[in-house]
């Protein structure tokens, strides 16, 4: 794309960083091939375990640095679930906390240079979004029975409008996993591609100081965006959960 003007020695395509390759040897990527995506997903899980297990091992009154990070994240997500999904949503807090911290850590280690951003792949985010969608739908039907369908039939609206609103509500319900997954994947992909586009400009001597400054600025913005996107994913899960637990508002 934009690298053709800049790349005299370094001809890197901005989307090359998202290619999935096998880690050991070449060949096809099959169902069980160990790829770079596998490696970085595993590293994200290990980082979460390290933070949570080693951080809370001491359980000191005056927390160490890792313990206070673990406690702050835990308390933050706990309060968010309580505020949005309500007291009875707290039963599902472990799931939302797992989603939040996994996405947060996967996003953050994806920002390391030469790393691979697993959450930039729709396959990864769509799996999580479909899991949330199915879980919320099943919870809704188990908790409310058939009256869960009442979220499509809005009692507050005038009667002639209700069928039209029901159609819109049904469409917006089934489009949830799409927007939920592509929001995260699109934000990650776009941000990293922009960094690489400016990295392509950095080889041109005339504009390289401006390009490197732009990389620093975008990197700072991305550091903010990765946290916000993890937060948005978790908060939307809470909103969907609230709809399933209390369909009549």
């Amino acid at each position, binding site marked *: 794309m934009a690298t053709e003007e800049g790349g005299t020695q370094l001809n890197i395509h901005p989307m090359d960083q998202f290619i999935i390759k096998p880690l050991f040897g070449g060949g096809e990527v099959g169902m069980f091939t160990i790829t770079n995506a596998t490696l970085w997903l595993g590293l994200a899980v290990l980082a979460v375990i390290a933070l949570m297990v080693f951080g809370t091992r001491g359980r000191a009154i005056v927390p160490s640095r890792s313990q206070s990070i673990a406690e702050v994240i835990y308390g933050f997500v706990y309060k*968010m679930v309580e*505020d*949005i999904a309500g007291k009875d949503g707290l039963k599902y807090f472990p799931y939302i906390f797992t989603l939040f911290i996994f996405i947060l850590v996967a996003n953050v280690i994806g920002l390391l240079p030469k790393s691979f951003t697993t959450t930039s792949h729709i396959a990864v985010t769509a799996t999580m979004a479909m899991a949330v969608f199915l879980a919320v739908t099943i919870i809704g039907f188990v908790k409310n029975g058939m009256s869960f369908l009442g979220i499509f039939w809005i009692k507050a609206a005038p009667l002639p409008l209700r069928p039209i609103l029901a159609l819109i509500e049904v469409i917006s319900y089934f*489009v949830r996993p*799409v*927007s939920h997954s*592509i*929001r995260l994947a*699109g934000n990650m992909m776009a941000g990293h591609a922009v960094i690489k586009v400016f990295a392509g400009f950095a080889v041109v001597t005339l504009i390289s100081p401006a390009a490197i400054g732009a990389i620093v600025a975008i990197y700072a913005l991305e550091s903010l965006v990765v946290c*916000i996107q993890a*937060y*948005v994913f978790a*908060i*939307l899960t809470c*909103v969907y959960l609230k709809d399933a637990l209390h369909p009549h508002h």
Partner: protein
Amino acid sequence: MAIEGDLVQMGAYVGAGLACTGMGGAAVGVGHVVGNYLSGALRNPAAAAGQTATMFIGIAFAEALGIFSFLVALLLMFAV
């Protein structure tokens, strides 16, 4: 003057570019949400902290429509 090459492919690429104008709409929407939140928060700073979550939910819903334009662009580029 005859046009050489794959006309359908060209149309798909032009359409993908045009679909990106939808992102401008999402930008206006998100800016509107945050701007109104900020003006409300400056009038009543005591109530601001409780409404940050609501603001993010509003941003997410406004942004969803921009995501659909991105989705259309991706479909035109890789699926059609």
